[in-house]
């Protein structure tokens, strides 16, 4: 019912919608190819610009100084090939998920990242969930009570959380909730010697989630508020009110659903920054995720891991954007996505 009121053109239903979604998915996947290629080429340029090849690092670490061995290694790793040949080999290796070997962890880069991935995904998902629920709720409240005390309160809070550096917010929350009050753990993902029970992990998850999520909650609040106010002025809302529906019913069934679209859009755009933000938060809370791995690799100049994280991170962003497009289509069937 709400859908019919919203849509000036009849919405696609059932199988037609499914094929449309599949068509969209295929087009997006094809568009993702040049994007990934671009990421890989930027990566390759960065490797080329690095002072000293990884071979020099490797030989230095293993104390190899024999020139014939080095020459042999140069040949094995193809460092004497022309640059374009090296690029092709690099792309070929990445296609097989071969990101190189990390001497520090003594395992392939992809494996090192894989081990740290679940913790980061958990942190990202919980932060985004927190940000969306707070942002949508606060935005709706502010827009329904526009120009009242509540509206101002929400706006001021959003401004503060939008300006506070997340790592600083995290440290301040540690000071308050862990050091002073002793309610929550200082860091880590589970108790030392703990077996990783769900409750224990959730207990450790609260502060990092707040530190990372509140910044995005502030953004979503602002977007949601203005989006609600904008949609509330549209004709179909007046029609719904004229039909005699209550204000609350109209707000929830008609305005909210349409006002969510901009939030979904920026969620997709910001997936990369959420991932990047978790790097800093993981370092504050010693959260054992990809961010900690990245920080460790950055400090030890472990390039292959750093570059691997960058490529996989970009892949995650592309995947998230495709997902967002599909959600978009589900929320608003009118939208023809290019």
């Amino acid at each position, binding site marked *: 019912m709400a859908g019919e009121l919203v849509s000036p053109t009849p919405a696609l239903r059932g199988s037609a919608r499914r094929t449309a979604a599949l068509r969209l998915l295929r087009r997006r996947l094809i568009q993702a190819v*040049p*994007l990934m290629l*671009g*990421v890989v080429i*930027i990566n390759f340029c*960065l*490797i080329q*610009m*690095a*002072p000293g090849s990884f071979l020099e690092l490797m030989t230095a670490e293993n104390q190899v100084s024999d020139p014939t061995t080095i020459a042999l290694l140069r040949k094995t790793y193809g460092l004497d090939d022309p640059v374009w040949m090296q690029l092709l080999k690099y792309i070929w290796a990445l296609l097989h998920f071969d990101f190189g070997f990390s001497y520090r962890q003594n395992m392939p880069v992809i494996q090192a990242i894989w081990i740290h991935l679940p913790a980061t995904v958990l942190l990202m998902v919980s932060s985004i969930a927190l940000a969306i629920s707070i942002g949508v709720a606060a935005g709706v409240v502010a827009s329904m009570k526009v120009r009242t005390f509540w509206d101002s309160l929400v706006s001021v809070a959003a*401004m*503060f959380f*939008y*300006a*506070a*550096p*997340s*790592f*600083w*917010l995290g*440290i*301040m929350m*540690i*000071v308050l909730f862990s*050091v002073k009050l002793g309610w929550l753990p200082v860091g880590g993902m589970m108790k030392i010697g703990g077996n990783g029970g769900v409750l224990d992990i959730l207990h450790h998850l609260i502060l990092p989630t707040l530190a990372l999520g509140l910044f995005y909650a502030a953004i979503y609040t602002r977007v949601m508020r*203005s989006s609600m*106010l904008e949609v509330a002025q549209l004709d179909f809302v007046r029609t719904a009110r004229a039909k005699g529906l209550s204000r609350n019913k109209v707000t929830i069934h008609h305005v909210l659903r349409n006002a969510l679209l901009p939030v979904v859009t920026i969620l997709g*755009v910001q997936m*990369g*920054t959420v*991932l*990047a*933000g978790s*790097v*800093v938060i993981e*370092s504050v809370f010693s959260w054992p995720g990809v961010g900690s791995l*990245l*920080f460790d690799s*950055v*400090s030890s*100049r472990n*390039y292959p891991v*750093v*570059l691997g*994280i*960058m490529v996989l*991170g*970009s892949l995650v*962003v*592309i995947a998230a*954007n495709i997902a967002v497009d599909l959600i978009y289509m589900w929320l608003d069937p009118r939208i023809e996505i290019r």
Partner: protein
Amino acid sequence: MQRFEFLGRFARNRGAFVGACLILLVALMAAFASVFFPTDPLRIVGLPELWPGEDPEFPLGTDSLGRDILSMIVHGARATLLIGLFASAVATIIGVGVGAIAGFFGGWVDEVAMRAAELFQTIPNLIFVLTIVVILGSTLTNIVIAIGIVSWTPIARMTRAEFLSLRDREFVQACRSMGMSDFRIIVSEILPNALPPVIVLSSLVVAGAILFESAVSFLGLGDPNVASWGRLVGDGRQLIRSSWYICAIPGIAIMITVLCLNLVGDGLNDALNPKLRDR
């Protein structure tokens, strides 16, 4: 006349006005840092870990080595603001350049430019900055350029949109028929008309750049010769059990500065877009 109207609208927005005043204060503080505190801020001047107010000589206390926190904050303002401004300038130059060319020429040039923008939006921004800093070294120049490289895309999109709407206006057609070169039309005819909204965006990029730099410095990857606010937070991190104020104070400085820049940006936005005035 028009200018007065603009200033009036800007001043009527109380938040933006307060923000602008505070930013001015921070800027003055940064400019005259060596007048107020002529000695090196990293010099040990008193007892370690004096709480704010404990010794009137050090109103914001001292850190773990006995350095004056107020002096470090005042000197750090210079580094923080300059990095923010220069990074935003880099982002604006790249963004305006790419956006202007894309919007003016259209066609495949536009297509390539927008795909490039998409590419830089895909790479997780802070990870990219860290990668550049690690590979090319933690110098101030590298950090500024890296932050500029991850921040130019919104400016490019905005500039492109402005150019798209301006490029077929009569005054541009007149210039074309006079035989003016494309370069001159872009730079001296369209650009001045496209700039106002772009400048607003640049002011917001300054705020973002300050947050970026503080995160990089906090992680200990900033330029070792520069004591920016982010680094002060990072330095104080070990002592949160005994002296959490060492961490808290520089963080508050970052927050206030970013908050004020955002307020000014919002105020400029409202002033330049009179349509939104009554919201």
